[in-house]
């Protein structure tokens, strides 16, 4: 169980290899990575996405979300890495990995982590295009996604 908040990139393969190294109790390993999606408007290409966060609260919120997942599912291991700072299209923003004995727990826990991380981890994205910047609005669908887990707070 680990949480890392950092500016530097990460190696998804190496992280997963390290997570399962020496383990024989893991039957399922699920990972998700989020990438900076470029603009589909050729007149307004995305130059860079600035990720701002709330140092201290970010780590606390992510650890809380991870602890909640661990309480709900029988996980052998989990990992959350989230980057901040300027990121370019195609770059990795974040990853979650969940490991369990059987696949259902790992799949569900990974989705749970992502749903809560979207709306409960204090990150904000600003898209910069041609010298102009705009803050990315939170999506109502992201807030709605929390409801299927039975509670609104993290």
């Amino acid at each position, binding site marked *: 169980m680990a949480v890392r908040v950092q500016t530097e990139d990460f190696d998804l393969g190496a992280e997963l290899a390290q997570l399962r190294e020496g383990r024989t109790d893991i039957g399922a390993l699920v990972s998700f990575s989020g990438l900076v999606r470029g603009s589909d408007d050729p007149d307004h290409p995305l130059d860079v996405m600035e990720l701002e966060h709330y140092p201290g609260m970010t780590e606390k*919120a992510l650890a809380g979300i991870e602890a909640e997942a661990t309480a709900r599912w029988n996980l052998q291991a989990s990992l959350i890495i*989230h980057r901040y700072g300027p990121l370019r299209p195609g770059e990795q923003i974040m990853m979650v990995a969940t490991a369990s004995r059987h696949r259902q727990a790992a799949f569900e826990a990974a989705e749970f982590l992502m749903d809560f991380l979207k*709306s409960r981890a*204090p990150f*904000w994205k600003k898209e910069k295009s041609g010298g102009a910047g705009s*803050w990315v609005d*939170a999506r109502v669908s992201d807030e709605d996604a929390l409801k299927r887990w039975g509670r609104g707070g*993290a």
Partner: protein
Amino acid sequence: MAVKVLYFAWLRERIGEASEVVETNAKTVAELVEDLRDRGEEYELAFADVSAIRAAVDQDLVEFDADISGAGEVAFFPPMTGG
């Protein structure tokens, strides 16, 4: 009491400060917002629509009726967009 107030994303940009120490008698987050609104036009503008603002007390997400007595820091920010 003196409380450290932090602003993030467009709130930080509109107010022009990332953090400041505010002297206040406010007992709740909502009362603190009222005090902050009196600090100037940029604050009024930033806090014009509180439905678009979230708050944290000592790094825990709270509702605006939350108690802030004894709080070390109170933060204001737009809805979060992680992931």
